[in-house]
């Protein structure tokens, strides 16, 4: 452990906020375990042994997209390009209808920026899901999509969000943040919402009463300074609105995209980035080890490196898999419970807004010996810092 890390340990113990330079130190510190254990302490102080997951279902309706992000292996620019696909509303709803015997609590929708669909497509999409399952939580459309809707349909951010909210939108996923700093953003995704526009959409959503997530795509051409800068921009908006629930670092995967010559970040970088996120983002309640991006194995270790959420069942992820992710496309509920338990944590099923649905007993294997405690009565328990 270096002296500068020693100072950071003191600051963290005193509850002081870390600076930009501290963030750089945390990335450069040779002792990964020192950074990880510090993040783990902060995480345990905030959440004890609890690790959240949910029953969610990802749907990607269209891969047609007007943006040309270098890191993306999913989008097809033209509607008629080979492999381009857009679901009908009925096809989308069918995904939920076929799972009503064991339904998800959340639907997470992320799409390409499709230039040829009417706005009503999205409104009907939302209201249709709510018709099938009125209490389903719709966490749909990244800030980049919201901004695209505003420009494309000549509406303000607020108008877009209000209309979608009326149709059933509950929350925004955190995608599209990439790296905020213009030195990077202009190079990897020059033709979509800027950092300010992205943050403005979330600011507006928070003002309208929505709680949202945010992300950071790391491990490509950005430097540690860009990562820390990114975190500080999140922290600043959070100071203003307190509307972010979770921060989700996303590892860049290189297969089949415009940066395919870059090596993917390795596991030690994944773990360190989780840890630094936990330490820098003192005002964001949850840090998520997104198992799709970092593999279930490393996500499990991430639960000791600052993360207290592991995302959900997902069911059928396609964006990361287009970029060569080796993770499964979905995990069964029991697999998530087991993954969390094996890390020595207490699995807590949550809804989108971190209300507790069900808290599992902490004991490890065997599964059968573990009793389930139903915590529906306690739905309003918010585990904030």
């Amino acid at each position, binding site marked *: 452990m270096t002296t500068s890390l020693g100072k950071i340990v003191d600051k963290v113990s005193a509850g002081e906020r870390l600076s930009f330079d501290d963030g750089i130190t945390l990335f450069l510190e040779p002792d990964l*375990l020192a950074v990880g*254990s510090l993040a*783990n302490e902060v995480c345990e102080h905030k959440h004890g042994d609890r690790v959240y997951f949910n029953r969610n279902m990802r749907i990607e309706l269209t891969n047609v997209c007007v943006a040309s992000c270098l890191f993306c292996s999913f989008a097809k620019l033209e509607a008629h390009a080979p492999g381009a696909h857009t679901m009908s509303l009925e096809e989308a709803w069918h995904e939920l209808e076929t799972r009503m015997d064991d339904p998800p609590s959340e639907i997470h929708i992320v799409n390409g920026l499709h230039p040829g669909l009417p706005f009503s497509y999205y409104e009907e999409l939302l209201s249709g899901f709510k018709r099938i399952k009125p209490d389903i939580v719709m966490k749909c459309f990244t800030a980049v999509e919201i901004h695209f809707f505003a420009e494309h349909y000549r509406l303000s951010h607020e108008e877009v969000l209000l209309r979608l909210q009326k149709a059933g939108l509950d929350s925004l996923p955190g995608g599209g943040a990439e790296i905020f700093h213009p030195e990077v953003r202009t190079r990897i995704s020059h033709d979509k919402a800027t950092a300010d526009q992205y943050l403005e959409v979330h600011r507006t959503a928070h003002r309208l009463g929505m709680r949202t997530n945010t992300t950071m795509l790391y491990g490509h051409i950005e430097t540690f300074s860009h990562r820390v800068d990114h975190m500080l921009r999140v922290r600043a908006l959070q100071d203003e609105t307190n509307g972010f629930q979770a921060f989700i670092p996303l590892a860049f995967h290189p297969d089949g995209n415009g940066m395919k010559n870059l090596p993917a970040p*390795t596991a030690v970088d994944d*773990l360190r980035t989780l840890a630094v996120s936990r330490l820098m983002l003192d005002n964001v309640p949850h840090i998520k080890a997104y198992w799709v991006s970092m593999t279930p194995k*490393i996500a499990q270790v991430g639960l000791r490196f600052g993360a207290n959420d592991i995302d959900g069942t997902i069911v059928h992820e396609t964006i990361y898999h287009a970029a060569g992710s080796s993770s499964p496309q979905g995990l069964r509920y029991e697999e998530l419970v087991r993954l969390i338990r*094996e890390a020595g944590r207490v699995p807590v099923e949550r809804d989108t807004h971190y209300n507790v649905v069900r808290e599992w007993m902490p004991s490890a*294997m065997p599964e059968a010996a573990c009793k389930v405690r139903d915590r529906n009565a306690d739905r309003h328990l918010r585990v904030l810092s």
Partner: protein
Amino acid sequence: MMLRVAAVKYLNARPLYETLDREAFSLELALPGEVARRLAEDECDVALIPVAAAASLGDVVFLEGCAIGASGAVGSVLIVANEPLETVREIALDLSSRTSAVLARLVVSHRLGRQPKWVGLPASEAIDFVGEGRAALIIGDPALVARDKYSHVIDLAAAWTEWTGLPFVFAAWAARDGVVDERAHELIARAANEGLERRSSIAEAWAAEHGLPVAPYAAYLRENVRYAFGPREQQGLQRFFDEASQAKLLPPTKVVIAGGKATRIEPLDSILARAEQGGRLSVGDGLRLFREASLFDLALASDAVRRRKHPQPVVTYIVDRNVNYTNVCTTSCRFCAFYRPVGHAEGYVLTRDQLRPKLQEVVSAGGVQILLQGGLNPDLRIGWYEDLFAWIKAEFGLGLHALSPEEILHIAKMEGLSVTDVLVRLQRAGLDSVPGGGAEILVDRVRRKIAKAKCTSDEWLFVMRKAHQLGLRSSCTMMYGTVDSERDRMLHLVKLRDLQDETGGFTAFFCWDFQHEQGTTIEPGDGGTTLYLRQQAIARLMLDNVDHVGASWVTQGPDVGQVALRFGADDFGSVMFEENVVSSAGTTFRMDARAMEERIHRAGFRAVRRNVRYEWLGEPS
């Protein structure tokens, strides 16, 4: 319920168990090491065990009252030679009792101020070992018979008492805490009292069995063996534990008496600090770490041990190829999806023509060895292996890391040869080292459940011991996550450590969890990456005498393998060739080695290739 008792079958133990109430106890007799194994592996409830075994376990209590010891000469634990100790260069150790072996090391190094070379040999061979510059430790009944045949005899108990002024305790009744209630304890004490009254008749019976005169043996039981186990004997035992832990031969141990006042439990931090500094851990210590230490406690301690053993920030790896020469096998292990029974349509034996391109690829890619393993195929005789090895050496000059203990035992049985003879012949044909596969968990209860037809843990260790004695090196492994308990895994590690004390032949340790595959019939038990990292870190802490720990990326994936470099590993295993990769080997190899080095570098280490002896081949990059 009947308590299961195990006791040492030597003459000196007879008075303690001869009159044991057989309605309250079932009794089994065995050699000391076997008695200790039974207690360790829960095959008995209370046992008269060598005290060193109790120290290695660390989670047993002693029953007060009676034990087997001596104050002054005992007559049955001797170092014998035909010359003074001062000129002896090598001493053979009878491996059936670890206590005497540790006592011998302590006494000899106290007397000489140096260590001679210690050679592990079974009792029968130890006696034959004595010659010019060579002495032997002999114990138990063989010692009583052999005592007058040598010009120089050191009675180790006498030497101990002379050195410390205290009695010595060789074996004592021990049990897991809480197993022996007051009534059982009383019955054991009563049996001892009655047995001691009958020492003369016991000696008579023994002498009659062996056709020997009674008098010396009656005197041995009456005068030499001290059966008391009170405060003074306990003090002597504590001194032995202290000396042995100082010499790093045994874990630090407190003599804990059943039903006695609770002893202070060692704080976790103190166990961790001891481990970091290279101190020895008992099975009980290992379990404390397993159950109480956080992931970071284990990571930091194991990382510190790695740094102490390997001060340079370098991670090694090897370029080799895994060649499975046959899939025909007679054992049908429940966890194996690879084997085919004899006569099965999918059974194969690789021909030279099939082997040649594989080996040529290794050579072209700069590889230095092959890992050659296969099933137990009854059609392949020792000559087949000799020819194959000689051919590989002559044609390709590759190192041969070949044939697990199971395969070597199979050849020995099939050919009616001793394990040593098989190893000597294979070594002559080109064998360089023995892979540590097939160890699984070296606890027979576990082995019987997952691989009934496979060798016992003692047989596995026996082959490794013989190989090491011939100058061959080997790796050692652990496959957990079937029906094994946490304690089984600790026992496994201690068995490896005990053998390493004897031979120093293990180069590296690798562990992995049971890989559930289709076609196997065992349900996986505990698993997960966190557990893997904990298990590897604990192994690094327990195996204080093994130089290297490797990250098993082949089973855990390259990501976890990389993280494991911060959990005690200093080696990244091997860049293996994919059997089904059609593209030119050069390309595949460079990609793989580069990816491996890339991961090593990103984890903060330099990378260097090694050979099977873990010697660097070049400078780290």
